[in-house]
């Protein structure tokens, strides 16, 4: 075993890349759940985003267009969920699960002609001399744009929920849709917008996998990332910065265990492979174990069907 082959700087830099898909999907789902909707279709929206982004990028030759296509694809699929749950009042859990299955199948169909193709490369952002800084340069200033966008999204969502009136209305809708309706807010519109945002974010996360992280298209390539994103939102107590911690923790352990595998650590591979899931959930459970106050963060109307008649 040769642990010296692991460079901690590269490890940190690569954990940011590894975490970005989950981070994007999770921050989108956080907004959806804050509005009181439980969309279990994150995995499905991610994989549809992955193939939409991949196809658009390959056909147009532009990764940027690819990411836009991915966001639109994810949002379009989420609208299917939105219309079913908000207008036809279908059960959110069942519809979300169906959305995942549907997304997996749809993406496989679209992806038929794209197996084995390389997508156009996404360049890193050029920070000029900053990138040459010792330590910080490697960690912070040599990434592609999406990494920074995902961090910006976390900050943006945090500020939106905390300081803006629209964010307050969104939280109010998620807290008690009946009271929000009584005050004259359009619960359905607010929720549809949140669902669309969640879909777009999940789509971006999926495209990050297929265009940058892997980068190629294989069926079922999200491999459960959407479910991890869902778990991170819950265990992060619906707080944006904790979502960041959870996602980076998961990405970090993933990268670390891959490095350990490569270094030949004398532990069965299966244990290493499962370690990111176990460690992430353990840590987040401990963080959120303080009941009482922590449970306040949960949107009280989460998953409940709203009908304006009452």
């Amino acid at each position, binding site marked *: 075993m040769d642990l010296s082959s692991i460079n901690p700087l590269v490890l940190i830099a690569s954990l940011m890349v590894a975490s970005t898909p989950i981070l994007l999907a999770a921050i989108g789902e956080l907004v959806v759940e804050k509005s009181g909707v439980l969309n279990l279709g994150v995995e499905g929206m991610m994989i549809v985003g992955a193939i939409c982004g991949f196809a658009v990028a390959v056909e147009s030759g532009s990764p940027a267009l690819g990411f836009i296509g991915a966001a639109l694809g994810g949002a379009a699929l989420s609208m299917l969920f939105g219309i079913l749950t908000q207008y036809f009042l279908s059960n959110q859990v069942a519809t979300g699960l169906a959305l995942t299955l549907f997304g997996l199948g749809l993406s496989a169909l679209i992806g038929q002609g794209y197996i084995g193709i390389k997508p156009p490369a996404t360049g890193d952002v050029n920070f000029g001399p900053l990138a040459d800084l010792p330590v910080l340069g490697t960690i912070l200033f040599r990434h592609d744009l999406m990494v920074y966008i995902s961090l910006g999204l976390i900050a943006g969502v945090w500020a939106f929920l905390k300081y803006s009136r629209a964010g307050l209305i969104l939280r109010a809708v998620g807290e*008690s849709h009946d009271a929000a309706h*009584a005050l*004259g807010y359009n619960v359905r519109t607010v929720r549809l917008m949140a669902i669309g945002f969640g879909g777009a974010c999940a789509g971006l996360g999926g495209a990050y996998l297929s265009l940058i992280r892997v980068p190629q298209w294989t069926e079922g390539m999200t491999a459960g990332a959407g479910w991890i994103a869902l778990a991170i939102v819950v265990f992060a107590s619906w707080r944006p910065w904790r979502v960041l911690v959870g996602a980076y923790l998961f990405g970090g352990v993933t990268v670390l265990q891959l490095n350990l595998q490569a270094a030949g650590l004398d532990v069965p591979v299966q244990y290493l492979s499962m370690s990111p899931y176990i460690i992430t959930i353990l840590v987040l459970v401990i963080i959120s174990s303080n009941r009482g106050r922590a449970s306040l963060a949960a949107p009280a109307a989460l998953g409940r069907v709203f009908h304006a008649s009452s």
Partner: protein
Amino acid sequence: MGDSLLTVEGLRKAYPGVVANDDVSFSVKPGEVHALLGENGAGKSTLVKMIYGLVRPDAGRMTFEGVPYEPSSPHEARGTGVAMVFQHFSLFEALNVAENVALGMENPPKQRQLSRQIREVSETYGLPLDPDRLVGDLSAGERQRVEIIRCLLQDPKLLIMDEPTSVLTPQEVEILFETLNKLRAEGTALLYISHKLEEIRALCDSATILRLGKVVGTCDPRASSARQMAEMMVGQELHTPSREMKEPGEIVLDLAALSVKSANPFGTSLKNVTLQVRAGEVLGIGGVAGNGQDELLAALSGETPAPSDAVKLNGQEIGHLGPNARRALGLLAAPEERLGHAAAPDMSLTENALLTGAIREDMVSNGFLNWGKARSFAESIIREFDVRTPGPGNAARALSGGNLQKFVIGREILQRPVALVVNQPTWGVDASAAAQIRQALLDLAAAGCAVICISQDLDELMEISDRFAALNEGRLSAPKPAKGLTVDEIGLMMGGAHDLEVAHV
């Protein structure tokens, strides 16, 4: 009526299968306190929802300050100068006071400025409130202050209040009335909905009485007696429950220093609750909602386990037993929330009868259900308690509140309880059904059952209890004989006015 603020003419609203309002007309003048009276289902709430823009009328006209008024949303109503305090608070527990207030305003100022305004207005009207506290941590009376202040900050010309006093202590009611009188003096018109006729007589200048969606009369509340108004509401004579006095028997239910932690993060934990109820006695437990009533019921019914020696039934320690074991011994309970707690909304009445009656009415043998027995048990409840429903096959959800309440209470009474605990037995029930339920509870006590009645309706408690105690922040006051208790004494037992002060401007 050239100077009227709001005029309503021929308003009609029909829902599938029911006409909620039909040809309703009345008018309110500036500075007038106008009462809307009526039983549950008389259409008062639908009417004010139309005025507040939540529901659109099918026919009829409204004018506000002489201008046609057709609000299509609450935003529009608030813009015109109409504000409303809701019966079921339209508040968000996990948000703080300032955020809740901001949500009810059209153009809220920045948080810091809003907090200052809240402090100012709350001081002026004697309703102290800290803008940074979470609403979930507030008492019912404080929550109502949030709603009122939310309305006051918009300088409304017409303030609608839907059952504002149902959750307040007598002292809090008094202070609320001072605030309202002050508003009246400033020229604000009030549309006031309440069941409590004495309050209406004390506060209101005029009253419109609704029955089954129609206006059946108007009256001057100061010149009419409460009984006259009640009979106009009901459309028939009222029977006051009667009882024969007799000596209470042995101690049946005995709570010794019961302390239970609340399961709900916003709930109130019970602290050192000690009480004894004798056979044939009704113990009334008052108190403002959210002071441990739900927790006390859960601790008595067995939903929350307690130390085994803290709860005794006929001397037997039962604190550790669950609800079914307690039912088998004869300690029955009917919780407050009809749909979802006392009854399963989507199950039929037969199934609901079986849910609590299975053990005592012997409807289970070798793990199999006896549907025939369950059905006849449900039928006997329907018959003896005059539950208006097509039959026991109907879903609980399909019954009106009063009918379902009669069913839920009747279901426990017919199981011949040794001790019965009821929480808010007549909440949201019309006057005649309420009188029936109270009579049934008195008859049960006369037959030797120990009854605990938890309620927020003080008139009800005074009417049926032998002894009265009050819950305040999870503590139970020492029970006193109900006869001869004054309103002031009761208010003090309930914890007084919760730091309220009188308006000073």
